């Protein structure tokens, strides 16, 4: 399954030059959103916590990896232009992505360790607060461009990188949840008190979910930065986190295929709604309310896997 997907991604990468630029643009966004939604699903869906700060971790990853390719890249490859030496440049890019992911994971640990003792609404508002704090911190780091952000990031992201990361992310999340260890996530989701009574270290499970989620959000941030070529703190605000949360909810919490489908649909939806762009957000929020009133288990969940918490 994993190999098959990777093969498909390889073929996609091969043909990426031949796809028309508009389609490639939309596909890249789809891929990045899949990574974000699937990784958030580990936290919000499988483990049943409610994080509203995913965009903050994305920002950490984006800034870290962009800083590496911008400032360190030329030092590591002094004699080559980034675009000339294909493999070396991609090695630096890959390293930068992973570093971005790791720093984001570290940030996830820093945020998760104190706040995951809280529940429900409180956790939501604390993660939201952390997301905002991360934004303000980046506004105040002058060497990273302050409020103006970073510009002139090398264009390294292509469809291959995006979808390879998406496949990896999906594989890791699915494999983790279906492993013996991973049953703990579902136990925390289903009934935290019972899970604790069974001897599970629930706080630790929550932190693991949070850190892994943050790692992939960091990767997605890195890919995003090297795709848009300029990043600024405003782009990673509260609204972006909400967008990702909506994908998870629409897909059905803890339903990975559903969440992937939702990420695809919700990325394409604005493109389809372009003719009525004025009403786009109104339609979007209205649909969200109607969905919650009629199908709180998600649009793409037909089987009730778990009881309502």
């Amino acid at each position, binding site marked *: 399954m994993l190999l098959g997907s990777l093969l498909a991604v390889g073929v996609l990468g091969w043909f990426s030059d031949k796809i028309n630029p508009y389609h490639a643009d939309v596909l890249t966004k789809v891929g990045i959103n899949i990574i974000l939604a699937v990784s958030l699903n580990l936290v919000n869906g499988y483990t049943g916590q409610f994080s509203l700060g995913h965009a903050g971790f994305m920002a950490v990853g984006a800034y870290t990896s962009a800083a590496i390719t911008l400032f360190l890249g030329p030092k590591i490859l002094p004699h080559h232009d980034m675009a000339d030496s294909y493999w070396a440049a991609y090695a630096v890019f890959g390293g930068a992505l992973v570093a971005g992911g790791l720093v984001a994971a570290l940030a996830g640990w820093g945020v998760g360790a104190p706040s995951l003792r809280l529940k429900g*609404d409180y956790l939501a*508002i604390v993660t939201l*607060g952390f997301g905002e704090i991360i934004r*303000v911190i980046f506004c105040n780091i002058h060497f990273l461009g302050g409020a103006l952000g970073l510009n002139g990031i090398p264009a390294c992201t292509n469809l291959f990188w995006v979808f390879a990361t998406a496949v990896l992310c999906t594989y890791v999340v699915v494999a983790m949840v279906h492993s013996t260890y991973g049953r703990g996530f579902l136990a925390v989701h289903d009934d935290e008190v019972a899970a604790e009574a069974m001897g599970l270290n629930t706080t630790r499970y929550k932190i693991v979910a949070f850190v892994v989620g943050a790692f992939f959000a960091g990767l997605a941030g890195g890919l995003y930065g090297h795709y848009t070529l300029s990043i600024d703190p405003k782009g990673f605000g509260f609204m972006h986190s*909400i967008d990702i949360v909506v994908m998870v909810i629409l897909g059905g919490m803890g339903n990975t295929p559903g969440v992937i489908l939702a990420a695809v649909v919700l990325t394409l939806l604005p493109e389809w709604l372009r003719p009525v762009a004025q009403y*786009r957000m109104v339609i979007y929020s209205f649909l969200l*309310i109607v969905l*919650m009133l009629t199908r709180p288990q998600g649009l793409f969940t037909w089987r009730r896997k778990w009881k309502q918490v």
Partner: protein
Amino acid sequence: MFHSDNPGLTAGLTEFLQQLINGLSLGSVYALLALGYTMVYGILRFINFAHSDVFMVGAFAGYYAVKPFTISLAKLGLSLPVNLHLGAHSISSGLLALLISMAFCALLGIIIERLAYRPLRDRSKLTVLITAIGVSLLLESGGQLIFGADPEPFPELFPVREFSGGGLSVSSNQLLVIGMAAILLIGLQLIVLKTKIGTAMRAVSFNHQAASLVGINNDRIISFTFGLGSALAAAGGILYSMNYPSIEPYMGILPGLKAFVAAVLGGIGNIPGAALGGVLLGLIETFVNGSRYSTWTDAIAFAVLILILLFKPAGLLGKVQLEKV
């Protein structure tokens, strides 16, 4: 040379007093907004994310109460000019605008609760929370559609005078904001403590089932709570806009989040706590803003939130509640 005063000290004191007044004025707006969060949380145990947008609608309702506008349904060929003829610049018209906006938002709050939250009463908290986010987005995007995305200058509702002396400069608006907020807070406290419906509110927040057993109509009390909270948010919106004179559909987000922090700081579900938390947060923010760390102002509220949740999760005036399984 004889200087009886130490000039540095006097300047420092003036600066301090100035910041104190600015902080109190901002803090009383946070307090008004925090009350809505805390009352709804006290009764329904969820964060009403849409509250910050009711605050925004309140500001716009005040704006349209004094500005003539046209309701036009171009497709139906219908155009209805509306002018409430309140004008501006007199105390009574300003108060009337405030009351109109409060009444409008009370109605809006009740409608939101009836349509979006009541059908979800027995569902998981997460579902309600997400619905609240949806309502919030709907109000913001709807506001953008109706009011336009550009910031509008807020009209002077009340005649403005600047008082200055001894290096201090205070606008009458600031004093008005503090005074009005104090009146509303005392009024709310009287409603909650002295009236029959206030007693019922406290009963419902204590225990839904027991309240309905003694014959309290829970739905009516919840509607009333939403109405009351939304009216206070509307007043907060107008008072806020008087000192920060431009309004736009997304203006509520940040004050709303901070007011929620204020509610948690004071102890969520606790009415005097929300007022205290609001004033404290307003003061902290103003003093940080006046210092050389002013670019960090927006982060301070959230830092306060995280500290309070880690060290005193019940808030300053809240009681520790044990979770029963």
